Structure formats: C-alpha cells, structure tokens
C-alpha cells in the first residue's frame, strides 16, 4: 500500500483539525519514551560501572603442605587447559608472608612470634569475564577441590552472587518497564486513532459510498499514528539530551561523582523510529478492530 499525496493531505488536515487530541497523545508518547530512555540510561551506567568488577575477581587455591614443584607445575598446566581460566599465578608461602606483612604494615609485629611460616603455597586463578557468575565459579571451585594437592578453595561467593543478582534484577526491571511503557504507548495511539476515526465517521462513510477502498481510508490514520509516534520520539530524544547536557553535566561541576556517568547518545538516536513503529502499531490495531 503506497500512500498517495492525498493520504498525507488528509492526515495533515486531521492533525490540524484535531490538534489538541494529537498534542496530548504526542506528550503522552514523549513522556513514555523519555521514561524508557531514562531506564536504559540507568541500566547502561550501572552495567558499565559493574562491567570491570569481574576482571578484579580471582579464586585462590590453597595447596597441601607437602606438594612438590613438579606437582605444582602439572597442577598449573592442568588449570590453564580449562577454557574458563584466564591466568594462573603460583604464590609460594614465602611470597604470601611478604604480602601479608606489606598489608599489615606497622602492625606486622604480630607475626614476629611465629616460629615457622604457617601460610600454605597457593595458586591465584583469574577467570575469563564470561565465566564470572556464581554458579559457574562454584562449579569450578568444586572441580578444583577434587584435584590432588588442592586443600582449600577460596573466592568471594557472596560478592559474586550480589553482583549477579543486581545485574539480573536491573535487566528484568528494565525489560518490564520497557514492555509496559511500550504497551502503554501503543494503547495511547490505539485510543487516539479510534477517537479520530469516530470523529470522522460521517466523512469515512461518504468516502466509502463514493468508492473508497479500505486502503484509502486506513492510510491517513496510519500516517497520523506514525507522525504522532515519531513526534513523541523526537520529544523524548530532546528530553534525554536536555536532561544530560543541562542537568547532569551542570551537576557534575558541583558534584564530581556525576562525571563518572556515561551518555550513550547513539543508543537514543533510534527513539523517533521506535515512536513511529509504536504509533503505527497502535493505529494498525485500532483500524483492525474497527468495523467500517
């Protein structure tokens, strides 16, 4: 169905004639898309902030006291063969003691009374970013414990779980919010087109009796839905840019923490197209349900 210039004329006439209904719809759609944008903006920034945390994560394998150098080497090479392992560092107990003293600094005298080094040799295992999830790490830790020579495995289980559930939770909230608001926007367009249709019912009836096809009648409403949605999208795009450049950037002068916030401008550029799609979807549903 190719829209004729007259379909655009009819849509434009209707938009001017019913300007208040259309303005109200544009504002509703713009607000909805702005909330979606803010949700995306928040999720993006939290995701960016937590993205580098797994790289700092490591698993420590404490080794048996009587393990010899050959056994350690074969253990390291066995671990390195695992796809989930990024790197393995051997920490002899002497190095571990030095590190402990460095950490304790002025309080290192507490270690002076020790006759022998109680710390075991250890392996520090760094994992690839994709694997750092609570279940995968636990599975890996269980497997490592089964290896001969490994006495104990230590990793930040609670931290990993918290991080994992924070991400999953945020993603879920984001998806629910986007789905709910998108449905709301479609419903706004659906209702608007339905109202506009009823207000032009006489005219449509006349068009039909003069030989208008369904396409001729439908197209101006689809155009109107698309224009309403696109305008709402542009409005939300302007809103999110204004929010960042006029609010957050100014705030960052006074509060440096806001300087950490990232603004993924390209993520928001499709907003007018999203608005157009939602607007046309609402219009199409309305026209599909109307009897004419």
């Amino acid at each position, binding site marked *: 169905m190719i829209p004729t210039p007259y379909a655009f004329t009819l849509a434009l006439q209707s938009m001017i*004639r019913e300007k208040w209904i259309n303005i109200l719809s544009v504002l509703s759609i713009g607000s909805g898309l702005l909330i979606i944008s803010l949700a995306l903006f928040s999720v993006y920034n939290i995701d960016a902030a937590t993205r580098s945390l797994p790289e700092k994560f490591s698993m420590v394998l404490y080794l048996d006291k009587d393990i010899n150098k050959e056994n350690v080497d074969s253990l390291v090479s066995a671990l390195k063969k695992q796809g989930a392992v990024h790197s393995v560092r051997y920490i002899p107990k002497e190095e571990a003691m030095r590190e402990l003293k460095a950490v304790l600094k002025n309080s290192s005298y507490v270690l002076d009374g020790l006759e022998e080094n109680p710390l075991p040799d250890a392996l520090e295992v760094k994992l690839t970013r994709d694997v750092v999830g609570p279940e995968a790490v636990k599975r890996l830790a269980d497997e490592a414990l089964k290896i001969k020579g490994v006495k104990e495995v230590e990793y930040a289980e609670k931290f990993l779980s918290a991080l994992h559930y924070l991400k999953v939770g945020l993603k879920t909230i984001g998806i629910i919010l986007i789905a709910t608001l998108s449905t709301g926007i479609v419903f706004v367009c659906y209702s608007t087109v339905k109202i506009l249709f009823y207000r032009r019912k006489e005219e449509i009836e*006349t068009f039909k*009796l*003069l*030989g*208008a*096809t*369904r396409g*001729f009648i439908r197209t101006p409403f689809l155009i109107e839905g698309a224009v309403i949605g696109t305008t709402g999208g542009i409005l939300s795009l302007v809103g999110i840019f204004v929010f960042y450049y006029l609010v957050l950037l100014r705030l960052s002068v006074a509060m440096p923490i806001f300087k950490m916030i990232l603004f993924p401008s390209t993520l928001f550029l499709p907003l007018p197209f999203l608005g157009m799609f939602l607007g046309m979807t609402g219009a199409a549903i309305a026209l599909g349900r109307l009897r004419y």
Partner: protein
Amino acid sequence: MINFSGVTKDYDNITAVKDLTFFVDKGEMVFITGPSGSGKTTVLKLIYYAEQPDKGTISVAGWDTEKIKESDIPFLRRNVGVVFQDFRLLDNRNVFENVAVALRIRGVNEKEIRARVFETLKSVNLRHKADAYPLRLSGGEQQRVVISRAIVANPVVVLADEPTGNLDPVTAGSVMKTFKDIHAKGTTIVIATHNRELYKNSGKRVLRLDTGVLVGEEIG
C-alpha cells in the same frame, strides 16, 4: 446495465422490497416512484451495494451480487454516481474539494482533477462557487454540487434519490435539466422520486412501487 431478479430485502421483520424483478438498459433513464416507505431508497441502496439483498440477485454494470467479493465493492461503486437524498456533502471542505474527492478516491492526478472538477462545476453553473463551503450555499446549489460529485468521474450509472425533494419548482427544473444533459451523453440514470411532475410527459419508463412491491410500470 441493472438487473433485479426476485430481490427481497428485510429490515428487522419489515419487508422493504419484496420479490422485485426489473431491468434498466444501458443509456436508459428510468424513474422509480411510489409513496414514502414504498422501498425507492432501498432499491437505490441495493444498486450501489449499501445494502445486500436477503433473496434474489442483482447485477450492476457487470458486477453480480452473488459473486462479488467485499474488496470489489469500492470498484462497483466507482461505476455508480449517487445523488444522495441527504446530500452527504463534507461541510469542512469547499465545493471544489467536495467534487474532487470522487476523483481523488480513484487516484486521478491533480492536473486532471482541476480540469475535470471545473468543467463539471461549469456544466451545473457553479464554477463561481468553487471556493464556497456547503453551508453557505442554497439548497439548489448544494444539490448541484452533489450532482457534480456524482458525475465528475463519468460513471456508467447515475442514481438520484429524491433529487428535487426540497427545491422550489424553478430550481427543480434546473436540476432535472442537468440530469437530461447527462443522460444525453449516454449515461444510464435512475431517479427515485415521489414528485409526479418530474416524470410526467418525460417519455421515460416509470416503475411504481408500493410497500416494496412493483405494482406497475408505465411511460411518463
């Protein structure tokens, strides 16, 4: 051109048209007459498929009601120009646009629309009212706008429902002259009227209806 065969149409147990059989030849001008409620308007509505028959078959310009698909109805209507009893003019559009809409629906280009609309308005002496809005026109002028809209696309059949219903005798005469001119060009015309003056001495066929039944046929 138009063929009714045993057509019956009911509205909520009220029979508007009963077992109606008649034909109208190509290029013929026919009057359908009868008192109010005799089924004249229903017959016209059946012709342009605003109503569908409960029984019988109707054939209009090659379209058969038994075979027609819903998507074909607009194309049937493009062959039929209708002068509605209640005019159905679009009050928020001027005379030019009211007439042009019949061509826009058919996808005619803008240049041709302008030429044909002005030519048609000229033929009904309304060229000077092209920019006026319907509510600013007299009843006779509105009627002529409706006629212009019905004929501007050169349909093969023109239907007119009480075309002189609210007009004074002089204006009614002018409207009838317009129909005669259109008919002279070979267009088939069906006029539903209860006004005897319109068909008296016309020399045209007159179908007389009463309570939905064809009760007589004569030459006016």
